[in-house]
């Protein structure tokens, strides 16, 4: 169950999307999320869906990787749909006991579901096609101007990239500790919520201890390799915009304009 989260997992292949500058991918993802909240008719969502489908196709990442990431939000998705379905006031089309489904509610629920699914898939495309190091490089560069306000941009980027690198390792470790505790008679499956939460203590304590130990080791290893913060540091892969990046930017602008025109103004 813990292995199902694909957010932050890089899918190794070679595609146009993989080669794009991470800054382009970051900006595109942000624009895409904004576009999902701008549009509120079917044409808009078809547009958003088509854009996503095109990007997924170009990225050469198998669809099952994105769907796998979806499992983690299924609960959230159901709650959002139910709330929208029953609690939106408007023209009643169906009544079940005290619950009323309205036309507006139905519409809202469907849109909300599509929105969430697209949102997760859209951001998975970014994380699946960009190495975390690349991603944080992009963020560091994009947020660079904040350095004037004494924001430790490099340090934040480094922390994020390390956190991402350790996600799979810590997941594996969690699995291992879980199995070890189950072998000693721990029960993670049964009981009510409080009991279940309590049963997590023997899982989390060793996990935290090991995470601290790892952090200590890693800090030492980084220092041993002359790490001293962002100053005087050169880049192995400096970010330089290429022709395809500008092309991607213009595509995104076109898409945004289309979204505003078709998804918002024309109803």
């Amino acid at each position, binding site marked *: 169950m813990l292995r199902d989260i694909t957010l932050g997992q890089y899918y*190794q292949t070679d595609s146009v999307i993989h080669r794009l500058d991470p800054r382009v991918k970051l900006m595109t993802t942000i624009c895409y999320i904004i576009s999902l909240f701008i549009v509120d008719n079917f044409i808009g969502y078809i547009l958003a869906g088509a854009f996503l489908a095109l990007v997924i196709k170009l990225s050469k990442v198998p669809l099952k990787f994105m769907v796998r990431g979806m499992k983690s939000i299924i609960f959230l998705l159901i709650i959002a749909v139910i709330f929208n379905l029953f609690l939106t006031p408007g023209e009643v089309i169906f009544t079940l006991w005290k619950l009323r489904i309205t036309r507006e509610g139905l519409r809202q629920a469907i849109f909300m579901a599509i929105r969430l699914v697209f949102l997760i898939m859209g951001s998975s495309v970014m994380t699946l096609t960009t190495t975390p*190091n690349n991603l944080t490089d992009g963020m560091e560069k994009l947020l660079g101007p904040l350095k004037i306000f004494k924001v430790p941009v490099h340090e934040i980027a480094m922390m994020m990239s*390390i956190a991402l*690198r350790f996600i*799979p390792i810590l997941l594996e470790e969690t699995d291992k500790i879980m199995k070890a505790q189950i072998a000693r008679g721990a029960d993670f499956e049964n009981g009510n919520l409080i009991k279940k939460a309590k049963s997590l203590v023997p899982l989390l304590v060793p996990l935290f201890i090991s995470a601290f130990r*790892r952090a200590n*080791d890693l800090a*030492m290893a980084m220092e041993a*390799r002359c790490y001293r913060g962002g100053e005087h540091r050169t880049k*192995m892969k400096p970010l330089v915009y290429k022709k395809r990046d500008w092309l991607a930017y213009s595509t995104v602008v076109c898409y945004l304009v289309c979204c505003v025109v078709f998804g918002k103004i024309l109803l």
Partner: protein
Amino acid sequence: MGIVETKNLVFEYIRRDEEGNVEGITRAVDQVDIDVKQGEFVAVLGHNGSGKSTLAKHINAILYPTEGTVWVDGKDTAKEENLWDVRQKAGMVFQNPDNQIIGQVVEEDVGFGPENLGVPTEEIWQRVEESLRAVGMYEFRRHSPNKLSGGQKQRVSIAGVIAMHPKCIVLDEPTAMLDPNGRREVIRAARALNDVEGITIILITHYMEEIIHANKVFVMDKGKVAMEGTPREIFSRVEELKELRLDVPQVTLLAHELKKSGLKLPDGILTFEELSAALGYGKKK
């Protein structure tokens, strides 16, 4: 003066209670004098808690001496202004392969050291390629480190150190968490670096088989250097090693026992070939 030299090196771990009062002092390294020449392959041997890892961390300026001095390439490690020079000259590979790889892709990790040194971009790529080829991991440059075996991860870590162009590499129990295959890979890589590139290797270990090829061996016990010499000299003192709770390779032990029961054998036999030759096998053919 050699590449690494220590003089009267003492290091004490100070334990403090919650108020910060000194509770106890543990002397981890006690009056150690070692001298390692450029290009040597040196092994430091000792059981857990003998102070060998603490000694290793002094060579990379991760720890500073409580008393005495450590020089790396003629520079005093305790001086602030020498810090980055020392760390570049003496690279370090640690025990746990997972906890020292920073990059998400093999080549990015190898590039981490040169990036920190401020090496220009084109040269970083050159260094990464050279280093990965030197440890035989070039084909894996685009892989995620999580998908590599333990031995491969350790070789990537070694490449990450070589990319900084050190004069000396300290390997702090690099094979302790590996299976026999991984262990062989790592030791082979270290020996190749020593032979081909002439990089000084200081191998900290508690596996006896790994020190056979060293030029010099230091055996540590309770923070002190208990024995010093070539592997052959060390292995001919089987009784002393046993007292230090160190296992002797089986062949050496067998030869030692045979000799004790009256067979005429030379001291310090290290390999099966030597033993069978000494016993007169192979002559028949």
